[in-house]
């Protein structure tokens, strides 16, 4: 018996801002910054969107593709570093919204940008052990970048949900492996509005070390090499890191292109690799092999070696695809962005 992905759904807000328009406010060359990051635009959550609404959108899109009874979903985990509440779960709202309540377990996860893939692994264990029939793993963020900080050019919003189970699996997860160390490259303490980061320390000793080591472990476990895969997707904090890591591992642009959404939507943090995986599943065909390695600061990587099954043809993939969402765009300028992101102090409501 194998566990794997039964269904999937992604969501990206339609608002976008270009690096040029961010740089203009800070006296920086935003276009050069965008080129350096390989980011053309980043998504911005609308004023009525947060990790809860994005998670619900993704979960609904996921459930809409299959005929699974939501009451059979025994576990819901939402990974994010921007849960609207410090105390009170996002996962309970999602469970009510898709009709999975009340007989289920639910919790919110946090592991920087890889809490969603950690949720997938948890659901794999729960479904393989037959503790629950299905588990719903969500990665979703409205990530924060301090005004004027380098992160502001990439920190964006989006999320994805994966229904994990052992029946009607559309992508079997043949192997999963994680690589975790204590590496303080990026952090946000309780009460802080914006994260801190270690500049270039986030590169070699953090992202690349974990992603590359995890990927190599996964190759070893699966007995594969880059040539065996049709698709590869990595955590994508910008458009350069995943491509460099991928090439170092032997992947070619053609394998990575479908899942590299960061160029058009920025870094959706916990959602980043997961929306990329959604875009791959939107076009994948039976027999395709998919290689996925996420990354979360702090730091760790989760890797997945997957094979798409014949059942992918049986789910409803005719709804909104990731490509549709990427094409459905409304550009905003910095003032509107500042308003939507709550960076403007508003008059307090009359008592």
């Amino acid at each position: 018996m194998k566990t794997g992905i039964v269904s999937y759904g992604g969501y990206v807000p339609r608002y976008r801002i270009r690096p040029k328009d961010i740089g203009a406010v800070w006296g920086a060359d935003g276009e050069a910054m965008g080129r350096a990051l390989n980011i053309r635009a980043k998504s911005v959550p609308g004023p009525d969107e947060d990790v809860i609404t994005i998670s619900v959108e993704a979960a609904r899109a996921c459930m809409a593709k299959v005929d699974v009874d939501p009451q059979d979903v025994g576990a819901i985990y939402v990974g994010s570093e921007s849960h609207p509440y410090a105390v009170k779960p996002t996962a309970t709202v999602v469970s009510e919204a898709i009709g999975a309540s009340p007989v289920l377990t639910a919790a919110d996860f946090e592991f920087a940008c890889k809490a969603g893939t950690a949720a997938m692994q948890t659901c794999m264990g729960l479904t393989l052990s037959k503790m629950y029939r299905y588990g719903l793993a969500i990665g979703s963020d409205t990530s924060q970048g301090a005004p004027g900080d380098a992160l502001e050019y990439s920190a964006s919003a989006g999320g994805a949900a994966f229904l994990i189970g052992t029946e009607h699996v559309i992508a079997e997860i043949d192997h999963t492996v994680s690589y975790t160390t204590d590496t303080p490259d990026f952090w946000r303490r309780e009460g802080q509005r914006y994260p801190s980061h270690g500049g270039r320390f986030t590169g070699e000793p953090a992202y690349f070390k974990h992603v590359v080591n995890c990927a190599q472990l996964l190759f070893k476990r699966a007995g594969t090499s880059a040539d065996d895969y049709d698709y590869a997707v990595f955590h994508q904090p910008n458009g350069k890191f995943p491509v460099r890591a991928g090439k170092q591992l032997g992947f070619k642009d053609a394998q990575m292109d479908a899942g590299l959404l960061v160029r058009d939507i920025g870094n959706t943090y916990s959602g980043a690799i997961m929306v990329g995986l959604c875009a791959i599943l939107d076009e994948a065909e039976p027999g395709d092999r998919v290689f996925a390695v996420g990354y979360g600061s702090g730091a760790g990587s989760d890797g997945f070696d997957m094979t798409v099954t014949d059942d992918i043809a049986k789910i409803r993939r005719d709804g909104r695809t990731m490509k549709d969402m990427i094409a459905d765009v409304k550009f905003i300028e910095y003032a509107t962005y500042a308003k939507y992101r709550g960076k403007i102090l508003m008059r307090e409501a009359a008592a």
Partner: protein
Amino acid sequence: MRDVAIIGVGETQFGELWDRSFRDLGIEAGLKAIQDAKVTAEEIDAVYVGNMSAGKFIDQEHVSALVADYAGLADMHLPTVRVEGGGACGAIALLQGRMAIASGMYDVVVVGGAEKMTDVGEVQAAEILSSTADQEWESVFGATFAGLYAMMARRHMHDFGTKREHLAAVAVKNHKNGALNPVAQFQKEITAETVLQAPWVAEPLGLFDCAPLSDGAAALVLCSMDRARKFTDTPIRIAGSGQASDFLALHDRRDLTMMDASVVAGKRAFAEARLEPRDVQLAEVHDNFTITEILAIEDLRFVEKGKGGPATMDGVTALNGKISVNTSGGLKARGQPVGATGVAQAVEIVRQLRGEAGKRQVVGAKRGLTHTLGGTGATAIVHIFERGD
């Protein structure tokens, strides 16, 4: 006054050494120098350490005792001294060590320099560096180090027609030399175009006009000349040293295009050595910014005042040019762990004079010079070295 020689050198890799601590670096450089000199712990009389700001970079003061302790010398109960003088601290530690031996008080002294700069963020590191400028008259009004040096560059451009292309030639040359130095932070050649197209740090200085933030350490073993041959066949004699200070704040200086402290320190060192600039074949000069090297080679009279830019462009200061400047790559390419700088410059000169500089060897190197600055030139120190054989 007794003659003093350098009998051992050691240095670490320079760069963003995420997995190395201050003490790791200090010990590695110190032990390499001690092994190179073949002295025993019992023969060492004192330790001098140049360090700019461990208190701010790693929250550790009292690094003099720390370095001796972690080098395994704690039970020798050696006198240990930490020297601070902005970016010049390593070179001043060398002078202090030299004086201690020259006076007859000590025979063998270890001089080290170290800085661990990457444990803090880049913004904080820039603020710490700026603390060697005048806090009340400069930094408090928002002047950064790069901003102050940019003003010098602008004035030099105005007075002498120096161009950005001239500044870029310094970076290109030092990267070319750095590419030949296995411990350099940047071992990669760059083109003038790369320098000229880089984003501004403080106009007219772009990113490639600035030395990097670095971790690293360097060390020397000094010995009285009369005992030096017991340890080595190629002692390198310190022929002359000159140290000078100037107004702390840039706006109080007599001239923005000339560092009086450098001029005076140079004259003092040459006078003691009874030498002229034409007598040295190579120099390691302070190039925290490209303009600084141009000022230095003019202030030390290697080139005519105002001609530092064109001279650099014409290859006068290139490896095996008329005077080889910054063969190590300089602060620009070898790296700039502040406290280590003055000591690392001396390490390079010693290697060159011994004929151990590999691909970047200056042919016929007999005498070399180091020039190190504190702040924006409120401290300058020059040492002249020559083969002792």
